[in-house]
């Protein structure tokens, strides 16, 4: 919005941004190695958030629906991946590399297939019939679906945390001075970055991606172009689900523990990330996820004048509120049929 005079809100925003830059700068100067280490931790955490946030944003882009069940699909598939690793393959910290690699590969496939099947089923059973209903009806159904999936996880895995041994070592791949990049972080980044790039490319360039974008912009006109709208929407849910499944396994491998309600908070954080970047916008979801990951870790890991871990949730959800109030279209702009 070009305007002659900067608004009070704009000035305040600028002031806060300046404050944050100064804070980051001072922390960097005081302890550059620690700063970079924390940066990597945040980047890794952010990459996991980005994977989940993409699922929210894909579904929102095509149906203008916040699929609240998404976080719980993520958690359930992560838990099932833990069963595959522990019960099927029986991996321990002493397992050979070969077994671990096979186990992880199988767990990844199981988690992705299961999560996308579940996501497609949720759409088919719950949302499809409500496509022409008021948006609130679908939203409440989404919240209901979230509880259903969460309680399925609770019924299967009870309230205890499911923990797996650290399969991807947290020893350093490379060390420069006191700055180190660990295997487990590298693993997460090496898996998410290509997925993010491939997904963006697919939606932008391929015929199926074009069909998705067309469906999100005008369903009736898309149908008249020979696009099977139901199939395109199912495909989108399958894609979002498979990302949730992959995120579930990655989360498990990186944090080594999760339980039935892990998806609740993770889902809300990823949703915040999607809104921060501009919901419906794929690049925005990635940017938002990484920013939130960094904000969390900087807040918990930096030494100088840091609010600290007790404040992390307040800060993250404070950002959600600030974005919704002052810049509802997010950093990179919303991409929906109505919004430009």
């Amino acid at each position: 919005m070009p305007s002659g005079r900067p608004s009070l809100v704009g000035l305040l925003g600028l002031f806060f941004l300046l404050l944050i830059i100064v804070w980051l700068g001072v922390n960097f100067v005081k302890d550059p190695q620690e700063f970079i280490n924390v940066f990597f931790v945040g980047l890794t955490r952010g990459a996991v958030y980005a994977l989940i946030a993409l699922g929210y944003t894909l579904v929102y882009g095509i149906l203008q629906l916040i699929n609240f069940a998404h976080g719980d699909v993520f958690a359930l598939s992560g838990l099932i991946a833990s069963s595959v690793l522990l019960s099927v393959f029986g991996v321990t910290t002493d397992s050979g590399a070969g077994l671990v690699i096979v186990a992880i590969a199988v767990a990844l496939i199981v988690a992705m297939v299961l999560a996308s099947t579940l996501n497609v089923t949720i759409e088919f059973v719950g949302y499809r019939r409500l496509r022409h209903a008021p948006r609130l009806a679908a939203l409440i159904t989404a919240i209901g679906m979230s509880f259903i999936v969460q309680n399925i996880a609770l019924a299967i895995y009870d309230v205890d945390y499911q923990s797996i041994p650290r399969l991807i070592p947290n020893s350093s791949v490379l060390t420069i001075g006191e700055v180190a990049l660990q295997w487990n972080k590298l693993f997460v980044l090496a898996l998410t970055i290509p997925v993010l790039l491939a997904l963006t490319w697919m939606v932008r360039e391929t015929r199926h991606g074009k069909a998705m974008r067309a469906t999100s912009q005008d369903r009736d006109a898309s149908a008249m172009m020979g696009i099977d709208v139901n199939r395109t929407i199912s495909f989108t849910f399958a894609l979002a689900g498979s990302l949730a499944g992959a995120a579930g396994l990655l989360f498990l491998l990186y944090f080594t523990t999760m339980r039935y309600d892990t998806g609740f908070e993770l889902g809300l954080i990823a949703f915040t990330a999607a809104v921060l970047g501009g919901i419906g916008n794929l690049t925005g979801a990635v940017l938002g996820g990484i920013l939130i990951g960094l904000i969390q870790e900087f807040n918990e890991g930096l030494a100088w004048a840091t609010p600290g871990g007790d404040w992390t949730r307040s800060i993250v959800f404070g950002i959600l509120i600030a974005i919704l109030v002052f810049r509802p279209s997010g950093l990179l702009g919303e991409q929906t049929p109505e919004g430009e």
Partner: protein
Amino acid sequence: MADLLVAEAVRKEFGGLVAVNDVDFVVPEQGIVSLIGPNGAGKTTFFNMLTGVYKVTSGEIHFAGERVTNKPPHAITERGVGRTFQNIRLFQQMSTIENVLVGMHSRLKGGILQSVLRTPKLRREERDAFDRARELLRFSGLRGRDNELSSNLSYGDQRRLEVARALATEPKLLLLDEPTAGMNPQETADFTAFVGRLRDERGLTVLLIEHDMKVVMGVSDRVTVLDYGEKIAEGPPSEIQKNERVIEAYLGKAAVEGASA
């Protein structure tokens, strides 16, 4: 000439309201047929049933010898029915050429796996699709606008793009819903000529909803008149112009004189 589209006693009720009342209607192959009538006569509702957007309350629709009653829109498009909309409905956040490429969706075969693997066959298909899209844009008078965002085109050009996008579905029958609405006289004249070319150069059959009597009388072989959901007249333009019922219901004397002048 064989009949490409046959609608038998097609009826649509919304609640208790009869929007289209048992209308029989045929479109002969390579014909240009116009559907006219006052606002709210049920013309667009009729279009929506032909294209599967609405389900019929009763009646049968056959296209190219096959029953298509209540088939989903994408299935009807696949069989060869393309359409444009009364209110322009382009994919506004896509470029001109992307709009046309989306129109080709049902004619392309590359699966998702092929897309990801970038097989040579798929690359060839994509290249061909791109060339055809460009050719269609040229044919529709949109040369050199390929990468422009469709919402930035002028009104007349957006109408042309809608036609190009409908042509990309490779229709046998093209339904145009008030294509000249909002066009200036020059654009309207160009468009009328363009509709003629669609049949003569592309062998298309055209069904037109139109309010501009100059266009209707100039281009159609046959005109069907709807009023309150009922067919009140059908015949060649010269007869329709003289038909008392039509004049009363819709045209008014001034319009008839205007068209014959």
